[in-house]
């Protein structure tokens, strides 16, 4: 017997609607990091990301409970679309500034511009990660969008094309430019030259 067999998203939703309470828990565990990381990159604020994450999942729960959910195994793209729309609303309404907090509530820009070679010694992993994060935020908006949706939200290029109204080759091209630009930024940064 294959104990590792994964129940599809559509099946979990059906089980939840049939009264299995733990099925939604399983579904959320499967998608929570993808959705949360994507939101966090969109709004660049840990606390706001938590709010949007919660609002998005509650909206999804209410919709599923109403019996209107028809996306079967496309829960990931559907959930990402809800989260993305909520993130856009939040950015518009709060007029977010492009800085805010890292996973511990510290401004990531505490690290940006701090390129003193002497500082390299003793740099810890967290700081290095913050650099990479800041590089992602410096990418042109459309490149960043594809990178978030492909790498973190785990949408296929085809799904991204449908979501963003672009064609698939444009999306793949943007992803390539995003990775190339990240590489360039890392090459220029003293922390990545050795």
């Amino acid at each position, binding site marked *: 017997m294959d104990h590792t067999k994964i129940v599809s998203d559509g099946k979990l939703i059906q089980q939840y609607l049939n009264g299995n*309470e733990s099925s*939604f828990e399983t579904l959320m565990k499967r998608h929570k990091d993808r959705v949360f990381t994507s939101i966090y990159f969109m709004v660049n604020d840990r606390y706001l990301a938590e709010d949007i994450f919660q609002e998005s*999942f509650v909206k999804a729960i209410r919709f599923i*409970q109403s019996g209107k959910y028809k996306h079967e195994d496309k829960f990931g793209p559907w959930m990402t679309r809800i989260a993305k729309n909520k993130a856009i609303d939040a950015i518009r309404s709060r007029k977010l500034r492009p800085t805010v907090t890292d996973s511990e509530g510290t401004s990531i820009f505490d690290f940006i511009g701090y390129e003193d070679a002497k500082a390299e010694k003793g740099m810890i992993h967290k700081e290095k990660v913050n650099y990479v994060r800041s590089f992602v935020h410096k990418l042109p908006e459309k490149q960043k969008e594809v990178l978030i949706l492909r*790498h973190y939200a785990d949408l296929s290029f085809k799904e991204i094309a449908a979501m963003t109204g672009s064609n698939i080759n444009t999306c793949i091209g943007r992803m390539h430019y995003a990775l190339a630009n*990240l590489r360039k930024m890392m090459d220029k940064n003293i922390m990545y030259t050795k």
Partner: protein
Amino acid sequence: MDPKYTNKHLLLFIYDELDAQEVATLKEELKSNIDLRLEYKELVNSVKHLDQLWECPNPTTVKIIDEKAHDGFSEMV
């Protein structure tokens, strides 16, 4: 880079979206084509950096959502 294979193929391969048949031929090409292999390694390296940036929601937030799912469930049944 071999014009037969472009960055598009490499990215589709990295993200597991390339057709099975093309995967086999691309793997063969990667063995012999140094330029292509170099580009592939550069892309993989960039992607690996992205893997450091995963974030998890706060467990309290997850718990609240679970409770909402259970609350609604009680109302449903």
